[in-house]
């Protein structure tokens, strides 16, 4: 596991080598490896988002249904996940699974960790979106005699999504950036690869800077695009 200790050891070894020059050649050399890591980053983001947005809806509906005990428990659960660090949650999952005989590759564990964490946030967004649909919409649907699943599917959820989707979009971008945390459970995503290159070649400047740049190059346009779409659809 690329734990803290290897970072520390690497830091100790480099302290001697004072190279201030930026080696473009080396920087470009790191790209293929970094891009391989990027694939994992994107995978983690994609599947993590899928999990988060599905689970989040489940939590939200469970809370809105006001089931006597379950809803309160879910509320506590959501607050707990939002109130504790993702890092510890990941460690917990990563080390707990094997003891219960669950052998999952690190990436899958990471996806579950990310998905669970962001599902708590997503549930709040869904709740706000659904609560934001005016009571009148429900009442009008009742008056029209629409069956319940149609009320949800055709009337309420579409309106709730208008509010929720831009926020969830931002979550995807956040998840993309936060996926770097998976490097702590030995997933070879973007930052993980950068750190390995650094540890192996004793040159951290180029790979870390390139990795940071790659994050920027992807997330900034994505954020602008999202803002553009928000403005266009006139979402809240």
């Amino acid at each position: 596991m690329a734990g803290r200790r290897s970072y520390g050891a690497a830091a100790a070894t480099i302290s001697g080598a004072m190279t201030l020059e930026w080696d473009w050649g080396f920087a470009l050399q790191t790209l293929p490896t970094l891009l391989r890591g990027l694939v994992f980053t994107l995978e983690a983001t994609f599947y993590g988002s899928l999990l988060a947005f599905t689970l989040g809806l489940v939590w939200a509906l469970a809370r809105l249904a006001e089931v006597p005990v379950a809803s309160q428990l879910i509320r506590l659960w959501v607050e707990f996940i939002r109130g504790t660090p993702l890092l510890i949650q990941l460690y917990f999952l990563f080390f707990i699974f094997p003891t219960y005989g669950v052998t999952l590759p690190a990436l899958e564990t990471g996806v579950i960790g990310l998905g669970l964490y962001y599902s708590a946030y997503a549930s709040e967004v869904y709740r706000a979106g659904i609560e934001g649909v005016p009571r009148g919409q429900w009442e009008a649907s009742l008056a029209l005699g629409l069956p319940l699943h149609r009320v949800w599917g055709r009337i309420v959820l579409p309106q709730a999504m208008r509010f929720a989707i831009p926020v969830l979009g931002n979550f995807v971008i956040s998840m993309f950036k936060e996926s770097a945390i998976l490097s702590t459970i030995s997933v070879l995503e973007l930052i993980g690869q950068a750190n390995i290159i650094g540890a192996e070649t004793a040159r951290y400047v180029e790979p870390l800077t390139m990795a940071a740049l790659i994050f920027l190059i992807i997330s900034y346009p994505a954020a602008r695009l999202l803002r553009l779409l928000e403005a266009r659809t006139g979402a809240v």
Partner: protein
Amino acid sequence: MTDQVSRTLQDYLPLLFQGVPVTLEATLASITLVVIAGFVFGLGRSSKSPFLRWPVGLVVEVLRGSSAIAQLFWAFYVLPFFGVELSPFVAGVMVLGLNGGAYFSEVVRAAFAAVPKGQTEAAIALNLSSWFRLRRVILPQALPLMIPPFGNALIDMLKFTALLSLVTIQELAYRADAIRSVLAEAGPVYGITLLIYFAMALALSVMVQALERLVDRWAGRTHAGDSAKRRAASSVPRWAFRP
């Protein structure tokens, strides 16, 4: 077997708890920088002069756009090469503070923008000085809007301090991991650690609520309208879940 482990875990608990003050220190230091940076960036971006707006905007976008973790590693490993010798704690707090500040700047900007333009105009029409205008007219109306997001930012900082364990700072997460590697039993250690963080988060939330009440009183806001809003019934009807 588990009995043996719990006993040894109990021995290590004091060590674990010693991470709490470090975590709180880091949280406090970071959130202070977040607020300062948030105001500096936020006011810079609201400025009328493009020469101030664009550079600040660029800095904010870069800080927000790259991953906080990437920035953390970058500050820890790359800065020394540029001759910047910072202690891990200072470097870590700076990264968390600037990153958080970049996000908080949007809160600051939005809060100031939410104050109706007519307030500024009335203050100008009454020939009140711009200092008075800022301190007694605009700020009392903008500050209360910033408190709830500030509360969120504070909890976020608490959680982000766990990342500092990756750059050798011996706060709570670092110690949890160290104890875990000694005991080779992850569940209880991390479980207790999560509970400690949760307790801290709850305590901070309570404090933020108190802060909110304080600021509201300073800003002269009455609560009559707000509590009524909070107790409003859910817009989802009873029969929404019973087919």
